[in-house]
C-alpha cells in the first residue's frame, strides 16, 4: 500500500462514480439526443479515469503501454460512434423533444407535432 496504490484507488473510484452518473442520465433523460449527450461524454471520461488508475497501479512496463493504447483508442472512437448514431437518427427524421410536459420519451411528442 504505497502512494501509487492510493492514487490508483482515487482515480478508479472517480471513474466508477462517473459511470453511475452516465447510466442514470441514460435512464432519466427525456429524448434520444440528450441520452446520447449523457452516455457519449460521461462514459468516455469514466473510461479515461479508470484506465489512468490501472496504469498507475501497473507501473511502467509493456502492459501499461497497452493500457495507454486502449485509452487513446477509446478516447478517439467512442465520440465518433455516438456522433454516427446521432447523425443516423437526424437523417431518419427523429425530432428532438421540445415539449415541457413530456418526460416519458419522444414518441408521443413526435406524433403530436405532426
Amino acid at each position, binding site marked *: 500500500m504505497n502512494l501509487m496504490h492510493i492514487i490508483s484507488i482515487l482515480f478508479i473510484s472517480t471513474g466508477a462514480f462517473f459511470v453511475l452518473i452516465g447510466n442514470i442520465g*441514460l435512464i432519466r433523460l427525456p429524448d434520444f439526443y440528450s441520452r446520447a449527450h449523457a452516455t457519449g461524454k460521461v462514459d468516455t471520461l469514466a473510461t479515461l479515469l479508470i484506465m489512468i488508475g490501472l496504469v498507475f497501479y501497473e507501473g511502467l512496463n509493456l502492459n501499461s503501454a497497452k493500457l495507454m493504447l*486502449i485509452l487513446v483508442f477509446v478516447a478517439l472512437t467512442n465520440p465518433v*460512434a455516438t456522433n*454516427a448514431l446521432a447523425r443516423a437518427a437526424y437523417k431518419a427524421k427523429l425530432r428532438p423533444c421540445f415539449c415541457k410536459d413530456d418526460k416519458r420519451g419522444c414518441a408521443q411528442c413526435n406524433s403530436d407535432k405532426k
Partner: protein
Amino acid sequence: MMQTFFDYTAIILLFISALPIYRLIKGPTVFDRMLGVGAIATKTMFLILFIGFVFDRIDMFIDITLAYAILNFIGTLAVANYVGILQSSNDKEI
C-alpha cells in the same frame, strides 16, 4: 488490499451495468437500444480488465479488452450505416 478493492469495484460495476438493460428493453427507437448496447459494452471492458487483475493474468486479458473495444466500435458504426441506408431507401420513419 488492492485485490479486495478490484473485487468490490467489479461487483459494483456489475450492478451498475444492469441499469442500461431498462433502456435496452423499453427504448422507443432503435437508436436508444444501440446506446444501451454501447453502455453495457463499455462496462464489460472494465469488468474484463478487473478480472484480469484479480486472476493475475493481465497480459492476456488486455488483448481481449482491445479486441472487445474494436468490435464495439465496428458494431455501432455498422448499425448506424445500416439504419441510414434503410431509411433512405424506403423513406419510412422509425
